[in-house]
């Protein structure tokens, strides 16, 4: 059978396309590398969620090669199989959106024209987007409605324009700590607001509302409140009868006809056998690194450097999220027992954020306005083993064991609560952050793995440290102790974008403004790969919104008359 549309991947970049095209009556086939886990398959088993490779490939079978600069300035390569550092995020129907924390901030208008607003930065490949915020706004709204975003719009100085007054779902229940932060912010004259979340606070269709399990990020949701691509969009698309999902199907090559069109997606099935599907239009949404890898692997006479890569831009300008994390503690012995009980309440969220410094206007910091970022305030994750592991180290870096270790653990788990802040600033695109095919390491099918260069720009650290100081001030004012932060050029692999940036010039971009490859007549990319700059928020909300935008374009173009 020849399908109307073949979609590679099923996460946030794919879900809107699957949903909209199926609903429009187009025959859609989805090739998902991971298994098809259903809601009833998820539990709060830390072993499955984080201690073993269940939702991600086994590194023995599939790894990455990461290239980082050491202190001496040398670029050193190491496979993740060798280092044990997992660079995967979630291979399953619904992709890593099943396991996200779902902080859903929109980008701001300035994010679409970073170069025009703030100018060039030496060593960074900053480019304006070919669309404006206004072009994406209706699709943020659509995502809020269909995926389900809860929260409360609170006006603040960098609040983005909205076509609706508020989020469709009211805010989730909060920990009393949120009011501590509110008080501290008022005293410091800082603006903070309730964080929007891609989590239902009320039921929607067959999805139940959040039941405050205390285990959200890294875990599949057992009520479908979390707006994963699977729960929010794919399940609905399946009801049309137009959508076919093929799980455990790893696409390794997109074949063209010699005239600039893709005709086949070649994939390995669960038995490792080579299969293919044919379609009229192809959409790739395998997450930024793997999307670039697939295009680079799809070489032929027509595209000797990889599909859509005669310009040499595929894999270039990968971006992650700049910034870092910080934390502080509330010691129960310092507060009333009743208050300690409230602070220690599991499940309910902190849900506070600040974008006061989304653009920094501070003469002491910079002569000109500078792009800043977002601070999200969160509680420490409840994962017990993950919480215990750092406790085996003394402050001087030596190993702690025996009764001293046990007492430290008992005290940490029962006599305090840690809260954290996460700082998101632009990861400036640069020549040292890109994806190519490794020429040594192969995966279990014998294909070259992605080699990811992780170079960062020093500017990111400067901005991150500015925000960290503000966040630390807020925590201290709120009464937390042992407040500290760490800003680095380290990479969070779950925050990846770029590699196939969109733009108007085929010489400098891979995709056009509709996310169609310049060089290929029927190839679209709808994950985060399109982003020339990433903004200063987590990416999932924008990936959803942009995928709805592209889906709208595709429906108009392909819908049967």
């Amino acid at each position, binding site marked *: 059978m020849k399908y109307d549309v073949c979609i590679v991947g099923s996460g946030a970049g794919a879900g809107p396309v699957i949903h909209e095209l199926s609903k429009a009556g187009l025959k859609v086939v989805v090739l998902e590398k991971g298994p098809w886990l259903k809601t009833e398959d998820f539990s709060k088993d830390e072993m499955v969620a984080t201690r073993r490779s269940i939702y991600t490939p086994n590194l023995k079978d599939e790894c990455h090669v990461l290239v980082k600069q050491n202190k001496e300035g040398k670029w050193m390569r190491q496979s993740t199989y060798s280092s044990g550092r997992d660079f995967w995020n979630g291979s399953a129907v619904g992709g890593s959106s099943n396991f996200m924390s779902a902080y859903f901030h929109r980008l701001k208008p300035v994010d679409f024209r970073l170069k025009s607003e703030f100018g060039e930065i030496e060593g960074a490949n900053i480019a304006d987007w070919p669309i404006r915020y206004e072009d994406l706004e209706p699709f943020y709204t659509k995502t809020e409605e269909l995926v389900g975003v809860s929260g409360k719009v609170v006006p603040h100085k960098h609040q983005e324009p909205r076509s609706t007054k508020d989020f469709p779902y009211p805010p989730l229940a909060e920990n009393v700590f949120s009011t501590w932060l509110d008080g501290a912010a008022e005293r410091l004259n800082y603006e903070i607001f309730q964080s929007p979340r891609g989590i239902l606070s009320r039921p929607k269709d067959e999805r139940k509302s959040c039941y405050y399990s205390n285990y959200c990020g890294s875990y599949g949701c057992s009520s479908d409140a979390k707006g994963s691509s699977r729960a929010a969009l794919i399940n609905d698309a399946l009801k049309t009868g137009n959508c076919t999902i093929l799980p455990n199907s790893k696409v390794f090559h997109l074949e063209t006809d010699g005239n600039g069109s893709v005709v086949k997606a070649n994939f390995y099935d669960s038995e490792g056998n080579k299969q293919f599907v044919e379609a009229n239009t192809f959409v790739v949404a395998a997450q930024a690194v793997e999307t670039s890898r697939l295009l680079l692997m799809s070489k032929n006479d027509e595209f000797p450097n990889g599909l859509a890569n005669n310009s040499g831009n595929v894999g270039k300008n990968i971006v992650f999220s700049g910034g870092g994390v910080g934390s502080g503690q509330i010691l129960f012995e310092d507060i009333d027992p009743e208050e300690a009980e409230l602070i220690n309440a599991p499940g309910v969220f902190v849900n506070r954020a600040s974008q006061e410094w989304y653009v920094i206007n501070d003469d002491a910091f910079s002569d000109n306005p500078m792009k800043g970022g977002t601070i999200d305030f969160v509680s420490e994750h409840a994962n017990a083993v993950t919480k215990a592991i750092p406790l085996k180290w003394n402050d001087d870096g030596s190993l702690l064991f025996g009764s001293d270790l046990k*007492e430290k653990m008992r005290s940490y788990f029962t006599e305090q609560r840690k809260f954290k802040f996460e700082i998101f600033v632009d990861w400036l695109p640069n020549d040292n952050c890109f994806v190519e095919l490794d020429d040594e390491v192969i995966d279990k099918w014998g294909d070259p793995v992605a080699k990811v260069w992780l170079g960062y720009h020093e500017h990111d650290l400067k901005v991150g440290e500015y925000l960290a100081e503000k966040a630390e001030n807020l925590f201290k004012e709120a009464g937390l102790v042992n407040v500290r932060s760490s800003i680095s050029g380290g990479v969070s692999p779950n925050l990846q974008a770029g590699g196939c940036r969109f733009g108007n010039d085929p010489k400098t971009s891979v995709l056009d403004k509709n996310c169609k490859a310049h060089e290929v007549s029927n190839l679209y990319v709808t994950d985060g790969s399109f982003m020339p700059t990433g903004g200063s928020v987590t990416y999932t909300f924008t990936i959803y919104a942009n995928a709805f935008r592209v889906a709208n374009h595709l429906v108009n173009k392909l819908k049967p008359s």
Partner: protein
Amino acid sequence: MQSEEKWLLSRKKFVTSLLLSGAALQLPWLTACQDKRYFPGDTTPLSNHQFRVLQSLQGTLFPSDGNGPGAYEVNAASYVLWVLRDELLDPDENQYIIEKLDEFNAYSKDKLKYNFNDLNPREQHAIVEDVSKTKWGERFLSRMLTLIFEALLVDPQYGSNPDGIGWSWLEHDPGNPRPKESHLYPTILTLSHEV
């Protein structure tokens, strides 16, 4: 007093009071003969002797000292056997554990002439302290501690943390739903749904 100091003092209070009131290392639960403890019929891929060394090492790293369960109470040694038998894990990493366990015991024999499991608790503590200061030893003992933490805190259906004693001690809420037997690792990897 600075808050951080207060917290550090607070968490040391229990151990300090033990030491002052009669020296923790002389308490009966710490001097119990570890060789008399539970011994599984099959210790593969460890020899019986390696298993005894492992038990003793875990007892030193995470002792049964009256402050919550020790490694023994949470079946940490059997948990390590389960890990070592797991063919999905990196075989090199599991071989590393076995090799370093032997190297650790060899250090004990070299330093104090006896297998680690035949030393008294004070000597065992000193050997672990010594080894933890070496590069290889620090990495190995760190790995051992992570395995103990897993045994202490993963779902009891995995055979450790019996009746959730680790969770109870640390007042940890493991969340719901708990995994069905068919959805435990590694069985969950064999799940399939009709397409």
